[in-house]
């Protein structure tokens, strides 16, 4: 049982926080968010230089071989600073390659991810599929030694800035069959690929993808054909665990800002933090934060160490239920306790609110994970 960071992790987290404090202030972030690409190449390079992109990649491909727990302090710092760079998108898709790819794929892709010269995204969700990972109707037909792929993907976080996409498609079976799903590497500039990018409420970019007769070579297949679902599930659980860690940081930031506001804002001749009703609500926000810290740890340790797949899913879902509810609770209360100021685009708290709102929904909302928790019998 060990919850605190070890020394190496602490040092890394400190470095990340120093970097962000220096290069990622509120105004710097606003410029990045409103820029054409929606991320900063120099910040991305700094992440690579700090080794953040290799935390989850094994040593032979240039990384540090850690699990979700090793990555968690970084995401926590990102949550505090509301980092919008395509970090989670890239490391999630990199895990698909790292866990499922051929030696050649791993050797080609992972070192470039680690050094920061290749950004990835995972194109999985389809219109109407909601959070069901088996609902894949994009079709990959074998053709001339390779595949021809047709279909629609949506809500691809950071899809438009990805240099390479990992795309799920069906090589057999019917929609929602657990078997028959495969993963392919697709160059977003290939013929037949159309990407439409949008902004998200929390300052990220998201893309819809249309695949019309996209031809890929046999080497584009990640892993063996038709059996990708368990891999997808485990990597989405990994992403969910990291998202929980990000929530820890975002909630900490919301709580700190709210506590500060309660102490400094005066009404009726006293700091509003002296009003007992607000005090008790602030305390409940603090308790939510403690619970989320616990559940983020549970999610990370489960994706790292739990060999029983059913149990891993249950624990990750338990964590996400709690995180979604705490994100909702803390974001809503922090804005409410800020009064009008909480609504303003000019204060960080409203941006933290937006990110927490998205975190609650991403990788499955509370209803989805409550259902998965309940139905995954031990």
């Amino acid at each position, binding site marked *: 049982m060990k919850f605190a960071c070890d020394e190496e992790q602490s040092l890394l987290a400190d470095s990340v926080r120093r970097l962000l404090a220096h290069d990622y202030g509120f105004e710097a972030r606003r410029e990045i968010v409103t820029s054409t690409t929606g991320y900063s190449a120099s910040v991305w390079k700094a992440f690579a230089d700090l080794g953040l992109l290799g935390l989850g990649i094994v040593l032979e491909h240039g990384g540090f071989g850690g699990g979700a727990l090793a990555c968690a302090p970084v995401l926590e710092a990102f949550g505090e600073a509301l980092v919008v760079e395509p970090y989670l998108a890239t490391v999630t898709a990199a895990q698909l390659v790292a866990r499922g790819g051929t030696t050649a794929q791993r050797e080609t892709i992972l070192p470039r991810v680690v050094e920061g010269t290749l950004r990835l995204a995972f194109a999985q969700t389809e219109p109407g599929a909601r959070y069901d990972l088996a609902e894949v109707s994009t079709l990959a037909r074998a053709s001339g030694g390779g595949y021809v792929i047709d279909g629609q993907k949506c*809500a691809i976080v950071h899809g438009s800035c990805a240099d390479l996409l990992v795309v799920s498609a069906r090589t057999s079976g019917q929609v929602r069959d657990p078997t028959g799903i495969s993963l392919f590497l697709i160059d977003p500039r290939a013929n037949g690929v159309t990407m439409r990018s949008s902004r998200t*409420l929390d300052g990220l970019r998201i893309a819809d993808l249309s695949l019309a007769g996209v031809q890929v070579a046999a080497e584009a297949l990640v892993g063996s054909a038709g059996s990708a679902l368990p891999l997808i599930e485990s990597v989405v659980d990994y992403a969910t665990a990291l998202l929980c860690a990000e929530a820890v940081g975002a909630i900490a930031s919301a709580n700190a800002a709210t506590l500060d506001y309660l102490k400094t804002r005066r009404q009726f001749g006293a700091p509003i933090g002296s009003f007992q009703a607000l005090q008790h609500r602030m305390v409940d926000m603090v308790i939510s934060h403690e619970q989320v810290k616990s559940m983020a740890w549970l999610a990370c340790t489960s994706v790292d160490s739990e060999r029983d797949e059913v149990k891993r899913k249950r624990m990750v879902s338990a964590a996400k239920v709690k995180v979604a509810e705490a994100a909702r609770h803390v974001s*809503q209360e922090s804005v*409410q306790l800020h*009064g009008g100021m909480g609504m303003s685009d000019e204060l960080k708290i409203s941006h933290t609110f937006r990110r927490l709102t998205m975190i609650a*929904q991403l990788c499955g*909302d509370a209803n989805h994970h409550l259902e998965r928790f309940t139905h995954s019998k031990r």
Partner: protein
Amino acid sequence: MDLDYSPDELAFRDLVRTWLRANLPADLRDKVTHYRSLVRDDYLRWQRILAAKGWVAPAWPTEWGGTGWSIMQRHIFEEECGYAGAPPIVPFGLLMCGPVLIKFGSAAQKQHFLPRIYRGDDFWCQGYSEPGSGSDLASLRMAAVRKGDHYVLNGQKIWTTFAHMADWIFCLVRTGAESDRRQDGISFLLVDMKSPGITVRPLVLMDGGHEVNEVFFDEVKVPVANRVHEEGKGWTVAKYLLGHERTNTARLGTSMREFETLKAYAARQRKDGRPLSDDPRFCDQVARLEIELLALSITNLRFLEAIISGRSNGAEASILKIKGTEIQQTLTELMMQAAGPSMQAIASADDTAAADDITGALARRYCNYRKTTIYAGSNEIQRNIIAKQMLGLPS
């Protein structure tokens, strides 16, 4: 939710409903129901249609254009307008400044301003909150120093809704020193927004929308003739305005329309290949909301009856505000949740490409509606009011 109105009330409702169907412009209704931003002209167009019909200021005395309707009729009218998707009435002129002038205004003020407000010649906004005084309104500091037949105003207002669209602003200002009773020395002024020295700065809210502003006053001259009521008695005016009986605090007509939108939207979304509306967990959330709506609808009518029959306990408006805003917020939250992963992508407020698809507006709307429990007396202030005024709990 057909609560059993009397035959007369039902007939009135049908009259209003029929008229709305014929006279509410489809493009305005679509803007409202598709969550697109309304501009000044949208508000004024609808106001002028109502004015032409004689229905724009039902609660005013009939001599100034009021309809003479009963409280119940006014309630029905307001609910029907919300239910039909009519643009909301901008309250600052018709529901706030107008009643204040009717109660406290000089004959000249009434003659000049009331018909203009009625017809929508002027677009009004409200200068109450200041950076240091929000919930604690009486701590306001904006100074108005009398020089001859003018006041000279220096200071700042904040959260001023629609200041960027407005021709006039009514302000609470400090004309006397802050004494032991901070409520003393406050006056109520009508200020032309074109006066030299007024600067309006947008305050963008977290949904990206521009509704509210900071308004800066730098040596702004206001004729003494534009003061309403006596100097130093502005707090009396402000209190009258805050306590002025309104019948649509709960905004149930709008919420019922939104509830139907939610049900239809959820039926179009898919989960496991079936309509989301079949999902038991989502279904329960919708059911609980419907039960809240039922409870508030009846509570609203019960309160109206209590007010009409003089059995008011004084806490009605606060209770309706609290529950009404909770319902409004839950509606935006369930809509956003219903959209699933697609809720992430937002359409900008003017994105006509997405005009027919409301999905891109849902997350913005969720954010925007957080304001409802903050503005117009935060829900915390409403609870304080109930605790003090109705329950007699000590400070």
